[in-house]
């Protein structure tokens, strides 16, 4: 590797702290004008970073020092949590962003890697959520099993759709998941045992004996109990990134890409197309179910109107906006999509309209998304 390509670890570490800081700041500040001002500053910083090639340096650095990056993210997250130690709502939102981003990574694996369209993602997230709610009726079931179990149930429900997903292409394939999303909504709304339109309540999480409704006390420092969920969400997000990055930076990533780009050529060279599509679909659904279950237990309550077509579209939009196939792009995209409507109260009424306009503008101006996916460089020595 030439010296020009050998990067330092610092850009990645600094970037992690800067991003965490921005996230925490937006989550913490209540004054709307200040939030808008802050957002303008961030937008300028972002565009400058892109122009000056800073982002490229960060990406190279992140690719070569994955351990440093992970350590930095963890430290930055802990710092952010400490900063927001009293801000319940801020912590809740950060946890929501992380879980949302997890769903988006699952969708990235399906859409960005394998080319499977999924317009019913909210239905899969909802399946995980409702599975957790149903598990709630079995209080003796430990929560780690509940979360994983919800993921597995989502996989099982998803596997019912495998045959249509594998046999159809293009618009016909889009219909399958679109229909599923609608079917899920209709089903849970109409089934009284699942709460109907009123929804279901859930208890919070207890992991390894630690009840998540307890505040964290470190010496004299008290951190709101929502921090528990932030840390859990961070762990789940890390798992999602781990799965996606191992998939992508391995032979499997190449096979998935070739299935997406040219099925005929792939078949001729022996690729078992169905198997890789199944893998991608399953992995994405598991992550969606896991995130949904965690979200449900965190909120304590779910209802059919949490998982509508609009939510599916939001997830797909986040994946596209973050750069299709770019697993890290989901994080800033979901941060914007989740935080902005909450923070800028005056646009609450208009949030769907503004969101739709933004998506249209970006789709017309930059169809590959805001942060396009970098080419895979599996150079020996750089494998994480």
């Amino acid at each position, binding site marked *: 590797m030439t010296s020009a390509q050998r990067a330092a670890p610092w850009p990645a570490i600094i970037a992690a702290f800067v991003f965490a800081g921005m996230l925490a700041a937006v989550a913490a500040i209540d004054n709307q004008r200040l939030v808008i001002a802050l957002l303008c500053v961030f937008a300028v910083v972002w565009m400058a970073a892109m122009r000056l090639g800073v982002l490229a340096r960060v990406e190279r650095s992140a690719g070569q020092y994955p351990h440093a990056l992970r350590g930095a993210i963890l430290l930055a997250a802990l710092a952010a949590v400490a900063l927001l130690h009293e801000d319940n709502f801020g912590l809740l939102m950060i946890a929501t962003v992380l879980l949302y981003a997890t769903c988006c990574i699952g969708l990235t694996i399906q859409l960005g890697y394998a080319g499977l369209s999924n317009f019913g993602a909210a239905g899969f997230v909802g399946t995980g959520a409702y599975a957790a709610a149903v598990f709630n009726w079995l209080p003796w079931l430990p929560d780690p099993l509940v979360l994983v179990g919800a993921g597995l149930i989502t996989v099982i429900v998803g596997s019912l759709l495998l045959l249509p997903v594998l046999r159809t292409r293009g618009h016909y394939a889009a219909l399958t998941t679109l229909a599923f999303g609608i079917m899920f909504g209709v089903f849970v709304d109409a089934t009284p045992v699942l709460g109907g339109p009123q929804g279901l309540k859930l208890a919070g999480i207890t992991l390894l004996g630690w009840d998540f409704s307890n505040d964290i006390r470190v010496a004299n420092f008290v951190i709101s109990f929502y921090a528990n969920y932030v840390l859990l969400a961070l762990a789940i997000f890390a798992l999602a990134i781990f799965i996606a990055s191992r998939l992508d930076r391995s032979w499997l990533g190449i096979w998935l*890409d070739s299935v997406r780009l040219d099925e005929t*050529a792939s078949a*001729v060279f022996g690729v078992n197309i169905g198997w890789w599509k199944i893998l991608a679909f399953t992995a994405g659904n598991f992550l969606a179910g896991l995130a949904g279950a965690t979200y449900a237990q965190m909120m304590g309550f779910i209802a059919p109107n949490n998982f509508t077509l609009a939510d599916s579209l939001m997830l797909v939009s986040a994946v596209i906006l973050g750069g299709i196939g770019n697993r890290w792009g989901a994080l800033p995209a979901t941060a914007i999509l989740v935080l902005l409507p909450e923070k800028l109260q005056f646009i609450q009424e208009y949030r769907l309209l503004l969101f739709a306009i933004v998506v249209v503008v970006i789709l017309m101006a930059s169809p590959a998304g805001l942060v396009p996916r970098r080419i895979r460089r*599996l150079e020996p020595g750089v494998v994480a």
Partner: protein
Amino acid sequence: MNNNVLDCRGLTVRFGGVLALNALDLEVGRGEILGLIGPNGSGKTTLFNVVSGVYRSDGGSIQFDGEAVTRLSPQALCRRGLARTFQRSRLCLSLSVFDNVVLGAYRRINSGVVHNMFRRRAFADELKLYVEKCGELLAIFNPQLTTRLFDPAISLGMIDRRRVEICRALIGQPKLLLLDEPSAGMTQDETSQLMRELIAVRRQLGSLTIVIIEHEMGVIEQVTDRCVVLNYGRKICEGRFAEVATDPVVREAYLGRAYTKSPVGPA
């Protein structure tokens, strides 16, 4: 033991009312380079598509290395040692050169989920091995390509893309290689160079049987041991290029009856 790598008997392919292959009989001997020529629409690419499993035949049989393979899937045929290139370049342009070439080695690579996701050191070793293999193979065609292994395929010129496609077909060490118009869009010099590289590769890889579809007769003359001429899905002539080039039936197929009233001397 059968000395034919490929044996087609009575092969028929229909597209609606059009008979693309009409009870075609074709043999490809082990280790030979066979040229497949004929006017446009005579069924050459269709033959490749049927043999490689992309199209289904409507009649007849195919034997690959003595084994009946009619109606097998493309994947099954690949496993038995078949590789091909396409008439219209089919590279994944947004992927790197390496990604494209290594696709050809799919059947030899460990694609286990656990191996890929968790056994990183083993994966790294395998990766290193294939990066070297790719480099060596590409170097036979164009040494410059070894420095561009991780550049996106779209950044390559036409000839380099062709070379990458051929390497993709070769890296899996196939028994039979089907080349569909490898020289399309190239100048005479580029074509001769590509053919020289191809012969060099074959020498290195030991016994490799090749079937080439070409319109460029210079290539056929230079490179092939034997030719088969198709027209309207049937074989109308076969033999060495010199014989085939002067055959009146072949001339009529290409030039029409009006130009074949009197045989013209060798070109």
